[in-house]
């Protein structure tokens, strides 16, 4: 009621500087809850990460004697990082050696399959696409035991091969499905023209379809990279050898290894993981967001 009255009076009076100022105040007041929300949001999202970064710069002594929210005494205390790095470097190498070959395979096989399912014409392609789609619903737990048996019998459990093979298979359903969707957007005439110019189907896949899809491929590669890089279940199951652990499994061990005694290196190890991803994310964030949500809506 009060607002109605002030409204009508300010309308009736000629808009002098006083009423303008009042309107400015009111606008700020109306937007105040919004600003409050954003502030709280930023604190909630950013503070844990800042706290982690600060923690990685603290000495063991500061951890034991200072309150946890206090700042580190020195911002150039990096010895936690060198301690953490000596342990994490090997795990990182394993992750890279397992994830990138799998990523390459997923992209190559997935794009080719998407092309065959969407551009080429044959009976049963709808059913085949559905077959791939079913893979998105299957929990990883369902294929764990048979695969472990096979890898064990083949003597692969001490190597990174089980991870490369399983990651490729796990990545395929979503990749094939999204690729098929992307190919739908490319006019068929492009491929028909190529055929008239004498290109075989294989040739037009490698020389035309693959380069044309460069952007989509990058998007899917990023999404798959985050899925595979962050995997714990498969890496935990198939790496029985400590020297073959990936970053995620290694990180899990890190706390156990240093226990409650070594806070700084633990924080630094977590930080290394977060910073690595941060670099990639800052460079490519728009694409990551778009790719992940596109995958979600269609999956």
């Amino acid at each position, binding site marked *: 009621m009060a607002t109605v009255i002030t409204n009508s009076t300010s309308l009736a009076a000629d808009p002098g500087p006083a009423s303008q100022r009042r309107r400015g105040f009111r606008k700020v007041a109306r937007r105040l809850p919004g600003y409050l929300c954003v502030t709280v949001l930023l604190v909630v999202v950013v503070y844990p990460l800042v706290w982690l970064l600060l923690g990685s710069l603290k000495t063991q002594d500061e951890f034991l004697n200072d309150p946890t929210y206090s700042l580190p005494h020195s911002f150039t205390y990096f010895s936690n990082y060198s301690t953490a790095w000596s342990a994490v470097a090997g795990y990182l190498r394993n992750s890279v050696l397992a994830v990138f070959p799998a990523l390459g395979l997923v992209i190559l096989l997935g794009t080719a399959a998407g092309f065959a399912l969407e551009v*080429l014409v044959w009976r049963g392609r709808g059913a085949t696409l559905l077959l791939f789609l079913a893979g998105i619903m299957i929990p990883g737990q369902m294929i764990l035991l048979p695969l472990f048996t096979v890898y064990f019998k083949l003597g692969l459990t001490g190597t990174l091969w089980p991870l490369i093979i399983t990651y490729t298979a796990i990545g395929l359903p979503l990749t094939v499905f999204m690729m098929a969707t992307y190919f739908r957007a490319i006019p068929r005439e492009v491929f028909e023209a190529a055929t008239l110019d004498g290109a075989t189907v294989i040739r037009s896949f490698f020389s035309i379809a693959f380069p044309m899809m460069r952007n989509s491929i990058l998007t899917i590669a990023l999404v798959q990279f985050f899925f595979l890089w962050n995997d714990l279940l498969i890496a935990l199951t198939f790496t029985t050898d400590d020297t073959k652990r990936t970053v995620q499994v290694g*990180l899990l061990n890190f706390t156990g290894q240093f226990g409650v005694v070594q806070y700084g290196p633990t924080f630094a190890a977590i930080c290394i993981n*977060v910073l690595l991803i941060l670099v990639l994310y800052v460079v490519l964030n728009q694409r990551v*967001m778009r790719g992940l949500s596109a995958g979600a809506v269609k999956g």
Partner: protein
Amino acid sequence: MTSVFGDKRSIALLLGPALLFYSLVMLLPMLWSLGYTFFNGSVITGFDFAGLANFRKLFDDPALMPAIWFTVKYAVCITVGQVLMGYGLSLLYLFFLKHAGGVIRTLVFFPVVLPTVAVSLLFQKFFEYAPQTGPVNSLLDAVGIGGIDWFGSAGKAFVVIAIMDIWRSMGFYAVLLYAGLLDIPDELIESAALDGANGWRLIKNIIIPLSLPVLVSSVVFSINGTLKAFDSIYALTGGGPGTSTTPLTLYMFQTSFSYGDYGYGATVALTLTLICLLVTVVIFRATRRDTVPR
């Protein structure tokens, strides 16, 4: 032209490798896993035929029902939390931040791509009670409530799991739902505002009905993900204290690899798969009736 695009050899060459890989490493193991449910033992001890014993064990297992219950409770709570927080954020992006929200969207989305294990360890330290007091307990101390042993009881551990998983994923659902909200034509919102709908009424009568499809797909996506959740819980609480935060995924993992019982592990995995299928079918049915009135 059709004959060129229908060339069998090219189809086999392009589709073959992917199909072979997928069949050998996903489809075949799935069927194989079904076979395991009729056996006892593991790859190390050897297998022997057990008939339906594993299924009978399923009904007598005192640990199974709590695991199913936790899985469902987790899926429901986290889904509600994720989608509600995401929806709230997307409305904030749409009405308050408008076009200037890029930086905030980017920041809020960042936890989504972080490694789950790293986030779990971070939250473990953040909510730590002993030997080091984490910031949360310091804050509670300062307010006068006193520190809480967050990982000492099932209920409190669940609260931390929920906070962490919602923190981790709300940015994702915010972007997803924001994209859905952007699809609503501006004129529609403007004309509704001219007709006197504002604030809560605008949201309730215009925005929510129009964004229902993307809300539904968010819920389906979230349920599908949360039923299979493993990493975050395993890294944060390890299923404890006791087995009070053990979902089916983790229970299956423990049965198979800690106790070496592949047959029963496969049976638990099958139970999980069936629950996933059932929930998906139910949701699709329910939403189809809602969105297509006849």
